[in-house]
């Protein structure tokens, strides 16, 4: 359960979120849409406790996340898988190492990690590029690596910021199907996207933001592109 109540956030005076109230049930799948600069990324970063917020309450599984500190913060983040809009791959780590990082971080054995890495790289069709470094990949390939890293640890909550950016439409569909698969296993999934085709195809819940606020919250949403 993710609950935001009256959440506001400013970056040095600039209001990026203003009075956002929204709640997402455990195991739900929702799209986050809205114009550039609407606050989608900011919202996801608040949920990961990457960015502090100024006002309101954010509850994740009933816990006020602003109170989480130290070792609890690490535990909290291990519940979440995130695809960052700017991928945030480690530039000096190979694809395998990047993808395996969330498991390494949890102290899993090398064998466990490499098995899981192989499996998840197969799912994004990047197995043969496992030993490349990020800058030796195309833009779309990098994003797939970021996705693989987000899902490898089977998190409770999956936050995807533009997961199909730079991805060929055919692959984009596959990736969304992958996300739906994962969601079907009970993973709460929030996807920020500009891909109207996918949103309109799926007919899932759509939260539309604008200028830092929630403008619409549609149970079976559409992405109006005109």
């Amino acid at each position: 359960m993710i609950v935001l109540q009256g959440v506001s956030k400013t970056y040095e005076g600039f209001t990026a979120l203003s009075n956002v109230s929204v709640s997402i049930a455990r195991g739900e799948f929702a799209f986050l849409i809205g114009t550039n600069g609407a606050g989608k990324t900011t919202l996801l970063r608040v949920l990961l406790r990457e960015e502090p917020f100024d006002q309101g309450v954010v509850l994740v599984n009933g816990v006020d996340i602003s109170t989480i500190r130290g070792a609890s913060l690490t535990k909290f983040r291990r519940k979440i898988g995130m695809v960052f809009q700017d991928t945030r791959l480690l530039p000096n780590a190979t694809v395998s190492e990047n993808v395996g990082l969330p498991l390494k971080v949890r102290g899993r054995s090398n064998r466990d990690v490499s098995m899981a890495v192989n499996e998840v790289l197969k799912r994004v069709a990047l197995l043969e590029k496992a030993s490349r470094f990020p800058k030796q990949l195309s833009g779309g390939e990098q994003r797939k690596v970021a996705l693989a890293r987000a899902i490898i640890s089977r998190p409770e909550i999956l936050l995807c910021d533009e997961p199909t950016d730079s991805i060929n439409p055919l692959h984009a569909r596959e990736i969304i199907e992958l996300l739906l698969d994962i969601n079907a296993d009970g993973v709460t999934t929030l996807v920020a996207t500009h891909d109207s085709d996918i949103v309109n195809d799926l007919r899932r819940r759509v939260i539309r933001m604008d200028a830092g606020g929630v403008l619409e919250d549609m149970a079976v949403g559409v992405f109006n592109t005109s």
Partner: protein
Amino acid sequence: MKTSLYSLRYVLGSAVNGLWRNRTMSIGAIITTTIMLITLAAFLAINDTLNQMVSALGRKSNLIAYVRDDARPSDVTRIIRDLQGQSGVAEVVFVTKEDALRIFQERFTDQTDVIDILQANPLPASVELRMENPAILPSLADELRELSDTFETVVVPLDVVERLIAVSNVSRVAGTVMVIALTGVTLFVVVNTIRVAVYARRQEIEIMKLVGATDWFVRGPFIIEGAFIGVFGATMAAGAMVALYAQVGPSITQIISFLPINTNVAYVRSLALFIVLVGLVVGSIGSYFSVRRYLAV
């Protein structure tokens, strides 16, 4: 248990990768560490040598206590034994009346007639001291002057002594200050280099934290990398130092063969070990503190 073992392997592997993949930074840091520590080691050695040289010069300075002709030989012998046991005294020489006369005659070869016309040898016997530590000369002279039954006069070439004491004090203080300062500079420059290298990788640290890494998981490899940079740099410095000592040591010893300069293996070995230890500690602690500020994500 299993977890921590795997982590250890991860930490080591990760550190090696980190060093290699950021080799521009790593090599820069290692070279900086090396040359800073060579400088420090060379300075320690040179400071030590200079101190020894100045002390050795001081040793030339002496105190001459002229023995009364009627002094009891047993007193003189006892005093000489006491002086030999006294710390700060390098050498005690007893110059007999006959020795004194001979020295006088040698010096004034053309005036032997002056002495010849004397009925008896007018020159007194003397006890001459060569000092380890010229600083205690004045008080020692006073002590000997008290023994007026034995000694007629106690002569201390005071101006030379004072100058030597001053010079050796100044050079010792200056040397110590410089050693402390240079140690500080070395630590600072090495830590600063590591700090900059970590700064260039601050995003890695943030990403790891966001992916659920504990502080120690992030720190571990960085600390090992820092320690490696420190130890590797220090080992090269120590190696260079040992080689240099082996080369230069003997020739210095030859040039100033009269001075007991420390070029022995044990000293160099302990200096080398010390340098490596400094590298280890500075590298790892430097990394620890450099990483710290980026962990607050």
